């Protein structure tokens, strides 16, 4: 039988040790673990996903999205709303006229990113999303959702460069496919 009351004293020893180490040690070794949020921030991991955004190349008009509506259909809580832009002739312009995402409904699952065949919708790192009213403030429209590819490269470098390479390859392939038709006489270097 151990001494009656020993457990109590040992517990007090542990708390006292933690009290002392909170002054001397680094966070990882028993020091204060708090991150003082607005001033200090922990970096977000690259894979971190929050709300979706739309990527454009160069200028906001050059949006990657073609308003195919796959993400709208696959979104589990159905928080995406897309309307196709019509050109002067009334034909679909393969561009979204309206692209709304209700952040109040979105559950950050990342399915839109997974299903998008045009690499145009990705999950953002910005988590400080707040609005006074959920019906108005949290529904984000196309204008707010559009972010540049540079921003995307900044927050998720690995994924962005992989996608850039893929897109480059596809483009080159396309160019190469187009080139033989246009410049056969030059006997150019076709694609392999």
């Amino acid at each position: 039988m151990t001494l009656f009351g020993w457990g109590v004293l040992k517990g007090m020893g542990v708390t006292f040790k933690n009290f002392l180490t909170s002054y001397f040690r680094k966070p990882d070794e028993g020091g204060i673990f708090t991150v003082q949020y607005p001033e200090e921030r922990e970096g977000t991991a690259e894979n971190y996903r929050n709300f979706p955004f739309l990527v454009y190349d160069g200028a906001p008009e050059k949006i990657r999205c073609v308003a195919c509506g796959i993400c709208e259909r696959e979104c589990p809580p159905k928080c995406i709303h897309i309307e196709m832009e019509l050109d002067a002739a009334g034909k679909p312009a393969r561009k979204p006229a309206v692209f709304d995402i209700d952040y109040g409904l979105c559950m950050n699952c990342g399915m839109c990113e997974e299903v998008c065949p045009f690499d145009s919708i990705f999950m953002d790192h910005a988590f400080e999303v707040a609005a006074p009213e959920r019906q108005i403030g949290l529904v984000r429209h196309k204008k707010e959702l559009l972010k540049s590819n540079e921003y995307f490269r900044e927050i998720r470098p690995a994924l962005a460069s992989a996608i850039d390479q893929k897109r480059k390859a596809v483009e080159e392939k396309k160019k190469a496919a187009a080139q033989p038709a246009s410049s056969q006489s030059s006997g150019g270097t076709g694609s392999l």
Partner: protein
Amino acid sequence: MLEINFGPQHPSTHGVFRMTVQLEGEKICGLKPVFGYLHRNHEQIAENLPYAAIMTYTDRLDYVNALSNNFGYALTVEKLAGLEVPERAQYIRIIMAELARIVNHIAVIGFMLNDLGAFFTPLLYAFRERERILDLFEAVTGSRLMNNYFCFSGVKRDLTDANLAVIKKMILKFPAFLEEFEALLTKNEILCMRCQNIGILSGETATNAGITGPVLRASGVNYDIRKVDRYGIYDRFDFKIPLGQKGDVYDRFYVRVLEIRESLKILDQALTQIPQGEIINKKSLSILKMPRNFKPPVGEAYGRVESPKGELGFYVVSDGTPQPWRYHVRAPSLINLTVLEEMCLGQKIADAIIILGSIDIVLGETDR
């Protein structure tokens, strides 16, 4: 005779659970658990979604360890559709599921000690460690709680070498934390007074009521689905099942501590054995890209895993369409709650709170 409603708004009912307690002085002579305040139509929603999209909803069942739910659901659909899982993905799954178990267990222990009245100290120590694991989850899966990490026949993202190194470091440090935690409270006389011989659940009652998980094992019944089913690749690891003697609150508390140690053992082995290779079956990539094209053959499947709370089962019936015809979750929290009254009768009010805490319920799973 006094009738008191504990909950749905009460500091220690772990959510919107409600107990109607009949008291005689401080003694409980009747207790009725009331569920359903967090009912979100989980099963019905799932029956209207493609298979892959349901995965995101399983996160919301037991939101303390979403990865176990992912695991169970992925296992069930793989069984239904006959999908193969690559070797590396198997290991990653085990690693993530065991980390989730650790997260769950330390959170539960911390909350239970908080219910006992230890003013947040053990809880915050536990959360300090939990935070490290959650940071890892964020780095790997993209989210801290709602991981949505598993997919059919694989996992969504690879564990990089850096991640593996972090895990390695973590499991090396973890025993020290457990030592400190145990020194803080497990031998504490007040804690022993409060927990020992309180809320005794006999092994027989537990088996009859269908109790599973640490609650059952604390009652001395050797039943762990990791050993019984040997799902995934659990047969390759050497680990033990800790069993309690009396089935009281203290046993339920301590069995969890011991299970964390066993999980660390599994993690250690998995980290040394993990091979290189694919993390997802190439054939199954299309399920991710086009969820609605995935139509499992007509049939039914029941898959179960040892979630930290007990046997977590998914029952899925396919009629050949993209959506399951029937989808049911066997939620361990709900079934473990059924013996609450039995354990609480004749105890004091304060005991009812810790008995509830020791069952480890998550209302997201109980009410679905």
